[in-house]
Structure formats: structure tokens, C-alpha cells
């Protein structure tokens, strides 16, 4: 009792010859089907090259276009020939010319000998498995497909759409339950001959001839009728990418393939000399009985599909440039923006850096230059602090910064005197946390030593800009986490907001703040605001500061100092 191999070939006939020899040398009879589209001369050379191998035969040639009946017809003819010609064949293995046996053939023969009644064919009901690429799953059994998908795509699509609209449906004969799966199977003589000699075969064939991609469903469906013991998996390792195209194996997959313990792999690149040399010359040493274990290969190819469809969040490059709002992560990781904090606290930046593990920058979008942490002029990724380079593409500056510092949380200061062209990018980024003390821009004005007329003008401008930013921060489109306090609110009770800011950024276990930043002296700020109002410029973003409120409050205790909260 042995194993017979049906090989479907259409290109790289030289490789097919090598593999056929390999099978035959191990005592497996081989029937080869060569695609009709292969030129006759090439076919004859191929036949001649194998003429010295006794148990290799060639079957009648069919035209095998992808997704059409030809492939099934070819495998039917070749299987029939194999079963008739070699009576001692018990299992038939359907392979392609680009398949490569990874383990000594004897191991496969032994493996099958231990499971004489088992059919290895991946076979799942279509309604339950969302495998298919292109949206045709159940419909491939209920529609007609007279047009070629490859060459007549327009008509193919139109005709599918037409059948959908008018609800045209085919009847599935004899209550067959459509199943689908990998087209590479290994069936027992019993099951296979039952399929091939079925009295209703003409009906089934007529039906499947008009099914879309019948090679993935013909045997898979019919095996369910006759198979006594179906193992729904393929013995051939074959991975598909997101377009349903098989992944190809190269020399650098050698170790992976070896460790997979699979019996056969497809598809091998025809020029992968290393793989063919390694696997076709393997001596059958101590035969192992391990089960196939393609886990690692599965992961690698699953990752490739993930990379192609989802990509790395926050990466912008020459082959990944997502449309707005389709980024799958505007930036690479979470970061925090602080507006108004440095104005209100004297040592906010060093304090924040001490209290958290984050990197704390100054005003990255300041008009003169990007104020990176530690006064650096250039930062990770060779990102320059040059304001003109930054302003040429403020969004790219942000995404680059976050991408370059992956794994380390970034914090930076922002305010109405900075470049405002980044506001909407920040606000639409779920990775951003924006903390705003509104109106705090007035504090430096208040503390400055300048003519009041100039101050008044600056205050008016800044208030206008910040009001616009606040409008954005509160927009319904905001995806960032935004917290806004008016300055009056914040000064009233600064501990709670500061604690929440720290809690969010810090990766350390949650503790109370042991040290707080020093609030600047704002005695007389209420009066300053009142003066602005008296000049007709109404500052409103900072909330209500009574003219004498803080003078009375401050009269009770000396100016604010660092304090501890337990």
C-alpha cells in the first residue's frame, strides 16, 4: 500500500521534474498534469526528461485558468488515471509543481499508513467561515460565472451585480451542502473513487462547472458525502495573503520550513536553489513522527497581512500615507499638551519631568524655534528645532517627533502665541491629551514691564487666538482627551488638576504628589484685568477674578510656597 501523487504543473517545469523524481524515488507513483497553455515543445521536453522514471505518467491536458473548472477537470483525469494504473495506491496526494516535500517521503507514507481511513481535506461550510477574499462566499455557489475574472473583469462584476439585483439563484443539486477549503488535499482511494465514480457525477460536474473557483469547493463538498473520517486540514502548508494570493517561500525561509514539520509546502520560488537543494537531498535518517506544526510560519504571514492592511500606527512614509481620518493612529503613541501651565507656575517643566518619566519639552511650536527638552537644538530622528522647517509642515513635525520617540511619552507646552496650524491635528488625535488653563496667557503680560497700550493690544490678540483654539478643543470632532480649566478655577484649587495630570502620565505606582510647582505671584492680577476692562478690552477666558479677592486672601497668609499634601 502506498501513496500516489497527482501533480498539477504550469510553469517552472524543471523544478516540477526534480520534485516528481523525488516522489518517484521514494516509491510513490506520480501522474502529472501539464497545463494546456504550456507550449507543446516545452511539454515534450518535460515528458522526455522524465522518461527514465518508470512510475511517472502524464495525463490528458486541460486548460487551467485560475478560478475555473479546468483545474478540477485536470485533477479528475489525473486521479482516475492514477487509481487505475497503480492498484496499490491507498492515498492520493494532490500537489502542484511549486510544491516541495519538506520531510522525507517515507515519513509521509508512514504517517498515512497509520491513518488508513483518514481523508485530509480542509473543508468548512461557507456560511460559517469568512475566508473568502472579494466578497463572494455563499454566492459563488448560487450564481453563474460565465465571464473570466482575469480577462473580463468588467463583465464579471456587472453580471454578479445583475444577479444580485434580480435575485437570480441557482439550485444546488441533491441537497449538497457547499464546503470550501484549501485546494490541496490527500484523499483515500475509497473516498476519491466514490467521488469519481458517483452515478450522479455528471450532475455534480455540470453544477460545479459554473461555480466560482470550483477547485476550492468540488472535492471539499463531495468528500463530505463519502468520507468516513475527514480531518479538515491540508497536509500542504500553504499561506495566502490579503488578496488571496499564495505566499512564496525563499531560501531564507529554510529554517522556518524545517522547524514547521509540515510534509509539503507551497509555493516555492522556482529560483530558490537553497530550498530545493536542502529538501530534495535530505537523507531519510531517523524518521520522526512529529505532527506538522506551522505555528511560527502562520504568525509571520499573519503579521505580513496585518502590516499590509493596518500598518504601523503613526508612521508616515513613502509607502504608507493614509488619508486624513484613516490613519489607524494619527501618531505613534500617547502624548500630552499643556497650555497655560508654564505661565502660571514658575518651574512647571522641571517639576513635571521630576514627577513623571515623560520627556518634557517647552513650547515646540514657538515662533523662534522648537524648544526641545534640555535646550537641545536637535532631537531624536535628527529632527531640527528650525522654526521654518517645522512650520513648512507642522503636522509632520508632530508625527515625526512622536514616531521618533516611540516608547517614551512626550509632553510639550503650547499656547496662543505659538503656531496655531497644528490645533486641528492635535484635536483629532486620540493619542493627545490636552490640558488647558484658559486665560493664563495674561499672566506674563501682567508681570511684564511694558506700556499698557501694547499690553492691551497683545491681550486682545491672544484672547482671540485662544478663543479659537478653545472652540476647536470643544468641537464635536475632538478625539483627543481635553481638559479645560479657567484660570480662576485652577488657582482656586490647583492640587486636584495637577494630581490628575500626573496620574495620567506617570507610569509609576499611584502616589500623591510630594512636591508641587511654585505658583507665580499673582497679587494684583484682578486689578490688572479690571484695568483691561476699563480700557474696553474684556478678558473673559480666565474666569472671574474679583478685583480685591486675592488681596484679601493673601493678607491672611504669606505668598504661596511649595507645600505638601499627604
Amino acid at each position: 500500500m502506498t501513496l500516489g501523487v497527482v501533480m498539477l504543473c504550469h510553469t517552472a517545469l524543471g523544478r516540477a521534474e526534480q520534485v516528481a523524481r523525488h516522489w518517484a524515488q521514494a516509491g510513490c507513483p506520480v501522474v502529472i498534469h501539464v497545463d494546456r497553455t504550456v507550449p507543446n515543445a516545452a511539454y515534450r521536453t518535460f515528458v522526455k526528461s522524465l522518461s527514465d522514471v518508470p512510475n511517472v505518467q502524464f495525463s490528458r491536458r486541460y486548460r487551467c485558468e485560475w478560478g475555473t473548472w479546468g483545474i478540477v477537470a485536470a485533477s479528475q483525469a489525473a486521479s482516475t488515471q492514477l487509481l487505475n494504473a497503480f492498484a496499490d495506491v491507498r492515498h492520493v496526494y494532490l500537489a502542484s509543481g511549486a510544491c516541495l516535500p519538506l520531510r522525507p517521503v517515507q515519513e509521509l507514507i508512514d504517517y498515512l499508513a497509520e491513518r488508513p481511513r483518514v481523508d485530509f481535506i480542509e473543508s468548512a461550510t461557507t456560511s460559517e467561515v469568512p475566508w473568502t477574499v472579494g466578497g463572494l462566499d455563499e454566492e459563488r455557489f448560487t450564481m453563474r460565472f460565465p465571464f473570466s475574472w482575469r480577462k473580463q473583469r468588467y463583465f464579471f462584476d456587472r453580471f454578479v451585480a445583475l444577479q444580485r439585483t434580480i435575485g437570480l439563484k441557482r439550485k444546488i443539486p441533491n441537497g449538497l451542502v457547499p464546503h470550501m477549503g484549501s485546494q490541496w488535499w490527500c484523499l483515500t482511494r475509497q473516498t476519491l473513487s466514490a467521488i469519481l465514480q458517483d452515478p450522479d457525477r455528471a450532475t455534480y460536474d455540470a453544477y460545479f462547472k459554473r461555480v466560482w473557483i470550483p477547485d476550492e469547493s468540488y472535492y471539499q463538498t463531495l468528500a463530505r458525502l463519502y468520507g468516513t473520517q475527514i480531518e479538515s486540514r491540508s497536509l500542504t502548508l500553504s499561506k495566502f495573503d490579503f488578496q488571496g494570493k499564495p505566499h512564496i517561500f525563499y531560501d531564507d525561509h529554510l529554517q522556518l520550513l524545517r522547524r514547521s514539520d509540515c510534509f509539503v509546502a507551497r509555493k516555492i520560488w522556482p529560483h530558490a536553489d537553497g530550498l530545493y537543494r536542502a529538501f530534495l537531498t535530505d537523507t531519510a535518517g531517523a524518521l520522526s513522527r512529529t505532527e506538522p506544526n506551522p505555528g511560527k510560519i502562520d504568525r509571520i504571514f499573519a503579521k505580513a497581512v496585518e502590516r499590509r492592511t493596518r500598518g504601523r500606527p503613526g508612521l508616515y512614509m513613502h509607502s504608507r500615507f493614509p488619508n486624513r481620518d484613516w490613519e489607524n493612529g494619527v501618531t505613534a503613541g500617547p502624548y500630552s499638551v499643556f497650555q497655560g501651565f508654564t505661565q502660571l507656575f514658575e518651574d512647571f517643566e522641571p517639576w513635571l519631568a521630576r514627577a513623571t518619566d515623560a520627556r518634557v519639552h517647552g513650547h515646540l511650536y514657538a515662533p523662534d524655534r522648537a524648544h526641545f527638552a534640555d535646550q537641545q537644538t536637535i532631537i531624536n530622528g535628527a529632527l531640527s528645532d528650525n522654526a521654518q522647517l517645522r512650520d513648512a509642515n507642522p503636522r509632520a513635525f508632530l508625527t515625526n517627533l512622536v514616531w521618533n520617540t516611540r516608547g517614551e511619552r512626550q509632553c510639550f507646552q503650547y499656547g496662543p502665541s505659538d503656531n496655531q496650524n497644528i490645533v486641528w491635528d492635535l484635536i483629532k488625535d486620540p493619542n493627545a491629551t490636552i490640558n488647558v488653563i484658559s486665560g493664563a496667557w495674561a499672566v506674563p503680560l501682567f508681570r511684564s514691564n511694558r506700556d499698557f497700550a501694547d499690553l492691551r493690544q497683545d491681550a486682545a490678540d491672544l484672547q482671540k487666538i485662544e478663543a479659537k483654539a478653545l472652540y476647536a478643543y470643544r468641537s464635536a470632532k475632538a478625539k483627543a482627551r481635553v481638559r479645560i480649566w479657567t484660570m480662576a478655577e485652577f488657582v482656586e484649587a490647583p492640587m486636584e488638576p495637577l494630581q490628575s495630570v500626573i496620574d495620567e502620565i506617570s507610569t509609576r505606582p499611584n502616589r500623591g504628589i510630594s512636591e508641587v510647582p511654585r505658583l507665580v505671584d499673582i497679587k494684583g492680577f484682578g486689578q490688572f484685568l479690571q484695568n483691561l476692562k476699563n480700557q474696553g478690552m474684556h478678558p473673559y477666558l480666565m474666569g472671574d477674578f474679583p478685583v480685591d479677592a486675592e488681596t484679601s486672601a493673601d493678607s491672611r497668609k504669606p505668598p504661596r510656597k511649595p507645600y505638601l499634601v499627604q
Partner: protein
Amino acid sequence: MGLWQSYRLRLQRKRWRIRARRKSTQLRPVVDRTDQIRPGDLFVMTTQRNEMVRLPYFLKYYRDLGVNHFFFVDNDSDDGSLDYLAEQPDVSVWHTKGSYKRSRFGVDWLNFLCLKHAHGHWVLTVDPDEFFLYPFCDTRPLRALTDWLDASSIKSFSAMLLDMYPKGPINAQAYLPGQDPLEIANWFDPGNYTIQRNRRYGNLWIQGGPRARVFFGDRPKKAPALNKIPLVKWNRRYTYVSSTHMLLPRGLNLVYDEWGGEKASGVLLHTKFLDTFSSKAQEELLRNQHYAASVEYKAYAEVGQENPDLWCKWSEKYINWRQLEILGLMSKGNWA
């Protein structure tokens, strides 16, 4: 895009093809070995002028990748490079005294050679100082990539130009013929590139890197473009529009994914900044044959004077393509 715009681009494409034919009269074949070409051969297309010192390694690098035939347009070299090229068994070379600038920086000449010889072949269009990297280039030959692209019905493959530079003044180490330029210029800027979309042609416009950082800090819009699409399965209807930055028909420029995924892509290591640079810059400034009135070379002359040092604390030392993949400068896409 409307029908009208589409039609205009079609006319433009035809115009470039006619122009390529017209400019081809400037080309004189020196050695034409195109009769050696077999179907499926991989080509490299290059214009060069006085690059003798670079050519030995350039040819070796691409031969090792598996390139079958080289097409050179020699723009009136006088350093012996033309003779050197003519002796190579897998090189066809044309000579011209025509203006580099008025052939649109060599594009017309190469468009013509592609039109005439490259129909149905994969063509890699690179300069003598550009070295093409693609995913798995250390273990898989170029043909593995082109076979995979063919199987995936992909017709063009992008590679960003990555400026390489040495640590220290660029003329500190002498580059010798046959030497790997990456032994000297092995640093690059890993993460300061900016991208915009060109709505008209559908390609991306990438700027940044050391040149933007050092030479173009005060006029970032003028910084050189780094987006390139050097590898194309050529069809006689195609044409490069501006250097290898973009092509027509514009579908060939869609080498990037717009829905969050990553397409496979490579990198062109640009080893311009060797000790040969200063003299080259001087010469190019005098010839005034480069893009936008040689604005780039003027900027070099202003800032760098003799010897710019492009290296900075955050420069990254080149290791291999996997490093560039991790940094996000290229991608394996779904090739695994």
C-alpha cells in the same frame, strides 16, 4: 479626477514621448550590446558624467543583485569613464554632448532608451551614486522581488532617497575606485522627513534629511525631493515626468497605501556626500545644468563652503535594510 484632467495628462504623456524621440537624436551609440538581451532580463538605466571613480563599485553592486544589462548615457565625460563602460560585457552605452538641463536632467534620454528597449522588462533607473535596497535584499536577488511584484500585479516600486554622509568633514576620507561608498558615508537622518501629496500626478512629495536640515533651513520648500519610483515594469506607453520622482500614467505613482496599510517599498541609499562632492559641486555650479537653476548646488556653496559636516548627535549609523524597516524608512508590506 475629471475626464478633462485625465485627457490633459494623456496629452502630456504623449508630449514627453515625442520629446524623448526628438532628444534621442543627440544620442550616439558607442557600444550597443542590446542584441544580448533575453526576455525577462533586468535592466539598469543611468546617465553619468565623469563618474569614473564610482563606476566599478556601482556595476558590481547591481551585478550582484542580479541585473542582466546596463544602459548608460554618457554626457560627454572626459575622465575615461566612457571607455571603461564600453569595455564592460553587459553594458550598452550611448554618448551625447547634448545639454543635460535641456534633456530635462537626462529624463528624455532615458525615456527614449526605455521606450526603445525596455518594453516588458523590469527597469531600475538610478544614478551612479544611488544604491537600491529592498526588503530581503541580503538574502533574495532582485528577481525574487520582480517575480513577486509580477505575481501581485504591481507595476512600480518606490524607494525613498536616503542621503548618506560621513561623520566629520566630507572630504576627510578619500573614496577609492571599487570601494563600497557606505564604508565612508554610513550615517543618515532617521526621522525628519515630511510628506505631501501631489494631487495632480498622485505621487508623494517627500523632503527632509540632512540636506533640508543643513542647507535649506531658511527655505524648506526648495529642499530637494526625496520621493523616487526607480523600479518599473516598463511599457512603451510609460514615461518618467520629472527625474524618477513621478511617471505617467499616474496610476504608476500610487506606490503608497492610503487606508493605513503599508505597501512594500525600498530605499535608495544616496552616497553623494563623499570627498568627490566639493569638486563636483564646483563643476556643477559652473555648468549650471541642474534643477531649478542649480539652486541645490548654490545652497551647498553658500552653507557648506568647502566642507560641510552633516553629522549630528542624532544621526543613525547604517547597519542593514532591517534597521531601515524598523525605523519606518521602508517596508516589507505583505512580502514575507
